[in-house]
């Protein structure tokens, strides 16, 4: 008699509510983290993944309280180590959807080593880097992304360090998916999160986030309604790089560099750089990454790089094990214990 497999009982589709916990959210009122939590809780039910398959892993810092507020499996680990813990989870369970919540201090300072190695290995993790350019939980010291000369509690005369650009660090670490969004750009953020989830390897998302207590307005250039369109270029795959209130400015390639051009006067859209997130070489995304550090250039947001030709680390590890088993058969422990030269002592 043939056996039939019954389809699983129909389940009500997941909603945002399914991803909220009963724990009181303890970020400061007005913190950008609320917006990020909101976007993630809105996107997770739309991904078509059962709730029990989600794991949210974090390090230490304000951002890293994130797992407590997500009704999924969650692990609030120790400072900087979330990518390493998450790598262990992924190696054992490639089927799980593992997201890492981290901050500029957690991911780029104390955990910098794990961040770059996770990215070069291309572990299938989605990394949300909340960048507020300050240490919030320890109450206001400068972070590795704080601008040069910034006065903070630990630098009353101004910082003397050059900051990291998280995007260029990620690209330099051979990341296969690199994106940037902003806490208050809810729809944009949700779109970026969805693209990240669809990417198989490491997905690195820098989220510009406002700490209204210790570094209020750090991203005002990007977020302020009036200034925003002049200071932000939204990257869309296959579309030219245009920005400005009147959409009258663009980015053009000039030799090995980029330049800002005014549209009109013989300069048309067809002269502009067309965004190609899937460009096989990282140099293009690297050029984009450095725009905002230059006067007159806008800050790019969106997916800078989305390259799918690199296998996921956990798949490579797993398939090596499978190949060895296919070639040699499943290990026989009794045989292994007797391997090599043996001798018998008779009674």
């Amino acid at each position, binding site marked *: 008699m043939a056996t039939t497999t019954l389809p699983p009982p129909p389940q009500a589709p997941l909603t945002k509510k399914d991803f909220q916990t009963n724990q009181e959210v303890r970020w400061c009122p007005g913190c950008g983290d609320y917006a990020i939590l909101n976007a993630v809780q809105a996107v997770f039910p739309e991904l078509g993944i059962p709730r029990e398959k989600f794991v949210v892993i974090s390090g230490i810092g304000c951002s890293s309280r994130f797992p407590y507020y997500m009704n999924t499996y969650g692990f609030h680990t120790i400072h900087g180590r979330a990518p390493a813990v998450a790598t262990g989870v992924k190696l054992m369970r490639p089927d799980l959807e593992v997201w890492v919540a981290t901050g500029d201090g957690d991911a780029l300072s104390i955990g910098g080593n794990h961040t770059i190695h996770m990215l070069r290995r291309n572990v299938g993790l989605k990394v949300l880097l909340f960048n507020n350019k300050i240490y919030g939980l320890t109450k206001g010291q400068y972070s590795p992304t704080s601008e040069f000369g910034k006065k903070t509690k630990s630098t009353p005369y101004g910082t003397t360090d050059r900051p990291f650009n998280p995007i260029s660090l990620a690209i330099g670490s051979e990341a296969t998916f690199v994106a940037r969004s902003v806490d208050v750009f809810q729809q944009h953020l949700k779109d970026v999160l969805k693209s990240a989830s669809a990417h198989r390897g490491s997905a690195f998302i820098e989220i510009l986030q406002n700490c209204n207590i210790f570094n209020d307005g750090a991203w005002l250039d990007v977020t302020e309604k009036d200034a925003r369109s002049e200071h932000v270029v939204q990257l869309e795959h296959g579309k030219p790089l245009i920005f400005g209130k009147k959409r009258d400015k663009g980015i053009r390639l000039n030799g090995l560099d980029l330049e800002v051009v005014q549209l009109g006067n013989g300069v048309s859209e067809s002269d502009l750089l067309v965004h190609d997130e899937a460009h096989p070489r990282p140099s293009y995304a690297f050029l984009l990454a450095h725009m905002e550090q230059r006067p007159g250039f806008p800050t790019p947001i969106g997916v800078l790089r989305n390259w799918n030709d690199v296998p996921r680390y956990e798949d490579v*590890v797993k398939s090596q*094990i499978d190949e060895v088993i296919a070639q040699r058969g499943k290990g026989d422990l009794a045989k292994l214990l007797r391997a090599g030269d043996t001798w018998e*002592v008779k*009674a």
Partner: protein
Amino acid sequence: MATIIELPKRKHEVIDRAVIRFCGDSGDGMQITGSQFTNTVALYGNDLATFPDYPAEIRAPAGTLPGVSGFQVQFSSSDVFTPGDTVDALVAMNPAALKMNIADLRPNGILIVNKDDFGETDLRKAQATTNPLEDHSLDGYRLFAIDLTRLTRAALQDLGLDAKSMDRCKNFFALGMCYWLYNRPMESTYRWLDGKFAKKPLLAEANKLAMKAGYSYCEATEAFQVTYEIPPAKLSPGIYRNMSGNQALALGFITASQKSGLPLFQGSYPITPASDILHELSGYKSFGVTTFQAEDEIAAITSAIGASYAGALAITTTSGPGMALKTEALGLAVMTELPLVICNIQRGGPSTGLPTKTEQADLLQALFGRNSEAPIPILAASTPGDCFWVAIEASRIAVKYMIPVIILSDGYLANGAEPWRIPNLEDIPAFPVKFETNPEGFQPYKRNPETLSRPWAVPGTPGLEHRLGGLEKQEVTGNVNYEPLNHETMVRLRAAKVEAIGQDVPDVVPAGDPEGELLIVAWGSTYGAITAALAPQRAKGHRIGHVHLRHLNPLPRNLGEVMERYRHVLVPEMNMGQLVWLLRAKYLVDAQGFNKIQGRPFKQSEIEGKIEAILE
């Protein structure tokens, strides 16, 4: 009638035991020579113990004193517990090796040196002012100064090898001589060479020829008047193989993986002398083992914590400095109550210390080396083969009690080898693990009343979504909680859980006398020297017992009572006195330490000397 001149007949002596040491430059292949000799005597059925001793530098300048590498093996027709205090036969490949090792050769011992490497430059490199082969400093030994390099070249001249390749075979010439001296067949070394040089058969041939030449040289030249025979030892019946400590740990973890039904995960960062465990396990992919060479020691342990969270039998392997780096993550494993096994293959310290030398000075670090109250059970292996059993026991405790467990081994056990009776797998009890799957009444920190362990709820299980983390947990719910009384409850619970493991720790039964004048309490690799010292001292009429602790936390429940049965308690350790400190603090017993901190194991004679000093 013609007169037949009879050559003096060679004497063939049957002896009980011998200690041989091969020493030379790091580039002379002394570790391989020693291991091959060991393998051969093991296959013959002798009991044995080895002591490889090599410098931290891969290749210190050739011929210099810091570049000397040595391999010692004691083999016998009766029980062997140590590699031997003094050496019966020393093979020294150059003046530096001779200078560094001659003190350990017993009077009238056999000394084989490579005469070809005693030129002016060689002597200068060894900082020798006179040539020991000519200055009568070696008169008290049976010296065989042989032109090993020249003879090896002569034996290999027809193979068409360059001089450098030929000279690389001279250690096998020496090995061949030793096989002749101790009447051992060369077949197993032939087999090894065939495997090792499968792709370079010419080199296999060259080494075989060199070895045969060494053997024939002894036969033809009558260099030695005596050959020795050491009959097989009377070990308990079974199938045996040679086993080093690190190898045994690796096999133990594979066994634990099968007995628990959990896939094995190893997160590790290369460090001497622990790396061999990673080398071994990374080769066992067909057992479904996942090995992860992490970017650093911290990622090595935290990836293992992640793997454990995801349902693996997770281990991390390291040595002292790496252990220091893992400290914070150990606290996380304590707080999240996830099973994990941490192997610390101790070496001389502090800091980088003596990477290739042995020590057992990380006991108190294992016990207390974390912020706040973070108790962790500790097990220590006593012999290379015992590492196998300790790996299984540590894994069993880790998953049964949902707790990280530390294994202490050391460089001496890790690299030392002994004959190991291969166990029947059926005789090793299984400890199948059941993950939590039932959402009804699930609470992440609800405890099993007997073990105080919490449920292991693996991500992917529907209905058990929960959050773990390093912040203090509320009892039962596991929610973040900062209340004063809850914290005290949880601190006490974590300690009580370690204490509960005591129900699985067998009572100690002293070896030797069950009561009397002196009890030796010890742990780890001092087992061999103490065991060897016990019999001769008891034969003198002393009433001595020996307790060797496998469980260092929690300690066996009857230990205090056992110590009271003896007038003196002696605790030999390769540290400044860590276990003795613990015993004095915990039991208010007047235990005294006996401490050696030289990067070398105790000698039997040192233990005996101390016993005599106390009792006579």
